[in-house]
């Protein structure tokens, strides 16, 4: 069996340094250890899955990576840089973008505006430029708008750009969150249950899109998902979390055979109905 601490790197990334490294990451909530000794290495174009039973601490790990929570122990390295002093917005500027398990869109803004918020730091005009409508404003806004529509076209959403984000169906809202995250020009994209609430056909097409996003943007994707078909189908590496601890990491086929994973999911008897 593979040691979880040993990174799993797809062949094409063999001589590149990892985009994300966690070393001994942990957090306590008032005495309760939610995540402990979490180690992972993600290479620049890897699609990595994070699975585990409910309450295992998966979303907490995303919150640690994006500094919504500050880790109690351990370090996070983003492209080799320690993120110790960063807050949520710094982490995003340095290259981590994310979606949320309970969708957090800007509901009363339009689809386009949601993506434009994501492009905020890509635009360069200043406050003065916006109030006096200097040429820098017009140029920057035009470029951003074109870029936003281009990003929306990944999911074929450019025609609903003027709709209110809150009025979209569930699946589209999830997709819009991905587009908004991509707009911030990340080097690693965290997806928190991207397929939750989607029907099988939608999930199928989402799988294709995840691969396609990786290929076009050449970024790493780290995703939490309960849909095993999606995880096993699209991920190159899978990490398994139970009670806040990493119990296994490997290729999808290794994980499927791992007795500890089977135990975590099915219980010791192994007769429970999954």
């Amino acid at each position: 069996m593979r040691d979880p601490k040993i990174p799993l790197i797809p062949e094409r990334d063999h001589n590149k340094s990892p985009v994300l490294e966690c070393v001994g990451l942990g957090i306590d909530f008032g005495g309760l250890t939610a995540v402990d000794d979490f180690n992972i290495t993600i290479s620049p174009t890897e699609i990595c899955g994070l699975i585990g039973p409910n309450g295992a601490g998966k979303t907490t790990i995303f919150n640690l990576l994006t500094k919504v929570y500050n880790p109690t122990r351990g370090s996070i390295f983003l492209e080799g840089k320690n993120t110790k002093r960063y807050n949520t917005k710094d982490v995003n500027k340095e290259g981590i973008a994310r979606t949320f398990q309970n969708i957090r869109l800007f509901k009363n803004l339009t689809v386009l505006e949601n993506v434009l918020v994501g492009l905020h730091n890509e635009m360069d005009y200043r406050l003065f430029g916006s109030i006096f409508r200097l040429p820098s404003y017009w140029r920057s806004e035009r470029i951003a708008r074109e870029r936003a529509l281009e990003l929306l076209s990944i999911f074929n959403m450019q025609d609903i750009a003027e709709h209110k984000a809150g009025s979209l169906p569930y699946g589209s809202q999830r997709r819009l969150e991905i587009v908004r995250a991509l707009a911030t020009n990340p080097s690693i994209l965290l997806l928190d249950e991207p397929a939750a609430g989607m029907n099988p056909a939608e999930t199928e097409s989402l799988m294709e899109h995840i691969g396609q996003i990786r290929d076009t943007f050449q970024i790493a994707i780290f995703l939490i998902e309960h849909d095993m078909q999606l995880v096993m189908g699209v991920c190159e590496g899978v990490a398994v979390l139970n009670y806040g601890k990493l119990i296994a990491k490997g290729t999808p086929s290794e994980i499927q055979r791992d007795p500890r994973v089977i135990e975590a999911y099915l219980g010791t008897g192994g007769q429970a109905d999954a």
Partner: protein
Amino acid sequence: MLLVSQLINGLQLGSIYALVALGYTMVYGIIKLLNFAHGEIIMVGGYIALFSLTLGNFHPVVAALLTVAGCTLLAVILEKLTYAPLRFAPRLSLLITAIGISILLQNVAQFFFDAAPRSFPASELFPVGTVMLGNVSVAYTSLVTIVLSIVSMISLTILVQRTKLGKAMRAVSEDTEAAQLMGVNVNNVITFTFAVGAALAGIGALLFVARFPQVTPTMGAMLGLKAFVAAVLGGIGSIPGAMVGGYAVGLIEVLAVYVGLSRWTDGLVFLVLIIVLLVRPTGIMGRKLMEKV
């Protein structure tokens, strides 16, 4: 000696703030609403007490009971009419509604009872006189006020910690939906919380007019604001916090006057509040809350 009697004075004032602060804290604890109208409940209490003594010629005990009952009833009606329909509305709407009720009550009172202060026959309500504690003379009203506030707090703590209803209150405050699923009648619990807060405000009203014997339509505004500061200072949502905050505000005010800063007292109270909030955003005894992501 002057200092000691001033300190007792401060405790008396602080006890009133504490009683009113308890109302703010309980309502905030359960539905996260800053009940801006709470001060106006006290004002209404003041008028009820005044009219039942002067117009009704009731026995002081009856007048006091009427006051507490009137405040409670008013709060329950307001809760059912305005806050209950907004249970799932954004918190901002709830807060603005509370501000609206506060202005409404103030102006209705002004319309009916006139803006001019009416003097309150405090001597009919509480015995006048002093007792000697050591060599400091203490007014009966001071003693009654301090003792009554402590008794109120203890009974409230017992209510919340020991009774079934108290358990329901804590459950609703922790997680409204889960409490509902466990069979707690959330609406009743919330109404009950408002009622208890208002009853304490009624007692507060009686003690307030005993200390400052006049009644005006705006009397609740500043008192409410200060009590509210006390609640925040102590840590909003915490019962002992409200008491600590109340005493703190009362003592700050009295000491400010003592050292000759009487014109700055209001500013000073708010300044202390701001400093405390910046150093400890959840107040002296408040719990740290974490937003779930």
